């Protein structure tokens, strides 16, 4: 069995941990340069605000509906993610971090009531970190992801699914009839990896619900659509066939992480692994024509090595200038690793994630002008970069991944100041000592 644990409205939930007064209010988190909504509270969703909706279109809701808009605070989200992931990792022999707020747990051979375990995960993450999660169990990752969708939707919109499935939903514990009803009530577009275009085409050929999709003929689907969709349907029928690498990409972040075969203790070995991961995510970023505004790096010991001291640090490094350059991203990732690494620990897992993604070629000239870091932007010749990176990708495609890599990574200069316009950013409560919260111990009672 797999479980997919994810945080409800991650970025907004992180903000609410430190600003409890935001509870129950419509809140959005805006992308870099305050361009568009990249996270919405349920109340903001109820106002009709769409994912990625530009700020100017919803700005009027500030006055009209009490909407609160915050600039993205990736340092905070990265640290809260790391806390949450480390808590979740305790519950299963294997964890695959899939995005900043989601991980798959592998429950092969684990006995007991999975729903009870799911509730325990949820309750502990909520108590320890303040973050609300949803947990879905299924015999394949696609099913676990779908169960998670059911758990979340049943909680948010009572009546969509039976209330017993809210927050924690285990497809494995459902009767065949219950599962069919759930699949009947779920649209194809809610399936992992089925994008808007494909779901429209599926609707055109009469496949609307997930039940329609699982009942369809796979050979025909493969012919009319793709092998990927065929795999998705097989997964929905309970046959695992997605590898880590062909799993659908998460929105707004690019991630590469692995558990090691044997634990790593020394820095040079970790540097090598992290460089590989950074190189891989840089390539993915270029493939989807994005640049990243920040790099998140984590390493973790294994909670199942009982005699090992545990250390699971992470750090989010904002970049002076958003980039897709392998050299810069490796440089930032390695520097991040060197900052969090402590000798004497048996690290069992590492990951590199690009966050704060933006379409390439957007607004970079302005960013230079308004850079408030006092530092020159990256001292890398801009001229030849894209061409060099394109060549690098082509060589790697032709001769295999890693055929050409960056030998010595240029370190990107950054002193913590972020170039971007972030007027509404909340304090970095957990990563900057001068920005931690204040607890009042005054004589008078706050009114």
């Amino acid at each position, binding site marked *: 069995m797999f479980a997919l644990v994810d945080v409800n409205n991650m970025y907004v939930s992180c903000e*609410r*941990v430190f*600003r*409890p*007064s935001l*509870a129950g209010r419509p809140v959005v988190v805006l992308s870099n340069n305050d361009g568009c909504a990249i996270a919405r509270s349920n109340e903001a969703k109820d106002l009709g605000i769409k994912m990625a909706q530009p700020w100017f279109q919803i700005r009027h809701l500030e006055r009209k509906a009490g909407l609160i808009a915050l600039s993205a605070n990736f340092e905070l989200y990265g640290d809260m993610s790391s*806390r*949450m992931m*480390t*808590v979740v990792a*305790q*519950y299963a022999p294997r964890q695959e971090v899939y995005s900043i707020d989601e991980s798959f747990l592998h429950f092969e051979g684990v006995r007991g009531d999975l729903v*009870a*375990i799911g*509730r*325990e995960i949820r*309750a*502990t993450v*909520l*108590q*320890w*970190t*303040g973050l*609300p999660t949803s947990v879905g169990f299924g015999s394949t990752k696609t099913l676990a992801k779908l169960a998670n969708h059911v758990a979340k939707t049943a909680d948010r919109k009572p009546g969509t699914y039976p209330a017993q499935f809210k927050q924690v939903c285990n497809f494995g514990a459902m009767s065949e009839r219950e599962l069919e009803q759930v699949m009947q009530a779920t649209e194809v577009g809610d399936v992992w990896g089925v994008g808007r275009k494909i779901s429209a085409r599926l609707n055109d050929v009469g496949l609307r619900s997930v039940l329609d999709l699982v009942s369809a003929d796979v050979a025909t689907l493969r012919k009319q659509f793709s092998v990927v969709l065929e795999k998705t349907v097989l997964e929905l029928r309970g046959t695992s066939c997605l590898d880590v690498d062909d799993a659908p990409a998460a929105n707004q972040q690019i991630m590469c992480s692995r558990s090691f075969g044997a634990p790593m203790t020394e820095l040079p070995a970790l540097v090598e692994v992290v460089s590989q991961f950074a190189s891989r995510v840089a390539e993915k970023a270029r493939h989807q024509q994005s640049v990243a505004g920040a790099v998140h790096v984590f390493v973790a010991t294994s*909670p199942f090595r*009982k*005699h*090992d*001291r*545990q250390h*699971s640090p992470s750090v989010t490094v904002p970049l002076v200038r958003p980039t897709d350059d392998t050299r810069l991203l490796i440089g930032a990732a390695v520097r991040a690793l060197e900052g969090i690494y402590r000798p*004497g620990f048996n690290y069992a897992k590492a990951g590199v994630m690009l966050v704060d993604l933006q379409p390439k070629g957007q607004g970079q000239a302005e960013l230079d002008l308004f850079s408030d870091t006092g530092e020159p932007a990256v001292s890398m010749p801009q001229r030849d970069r894209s061409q060099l990176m394109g060549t690098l990708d082509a060589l790697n495609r032709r001769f295999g991944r890693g055929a050409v890599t960056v030998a010595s990574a240029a370190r990107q200069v950054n002193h913590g100041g972020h170039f971007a316009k972030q007027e509404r950013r909340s304090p970095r*409560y*957990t990563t900057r*000592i001068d920005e*931690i*919260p*204040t*607890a*009042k*111990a*005054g*004589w008078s*009672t*706050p*009114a």
Partner: protein
Amino acid sequence: MSSSVRQGDVVRVGRESAADQTPTRASVVIGFGSPADDTGVTRLDLNDILIKHPQATFLMHVAGNAMREVGIDDGDLLLVDRAITPAHGHIVIAVVAGEFVCRRLFRQGDDIRLQATNPDCADIAPRDGQELQVWGVVTNAIKSMPA
């Protein structure tokens, strides 16, 4: 996010009061194992000594002197552990009117209040139906000396 504490309720941070939740907490222990069992001696590390639950521990500054009698002064650095279930006598961070407030949790039977250690300060008690949210338990206060 945090549970509401009404008269007679068990005080628990972040727990939801759904009746069907069976705590199975004892099955999981998160934190540091015993240091250096077989890897030799390592230098003492304040993180290991002071922070039992690193994933659940947060830093806060204190503003005000209403907790001076337990040694918490204006400007001190607090370690706040959310993994500890708040109990009578704990120094806690509570959420009052949307703000973080440092007080001692008084809980005797149905009587639940937040107390300052300065006897001249009034207690904060939840009124009927009002929520008293405990955000975390203060485990340490760190003060800087002139040096």
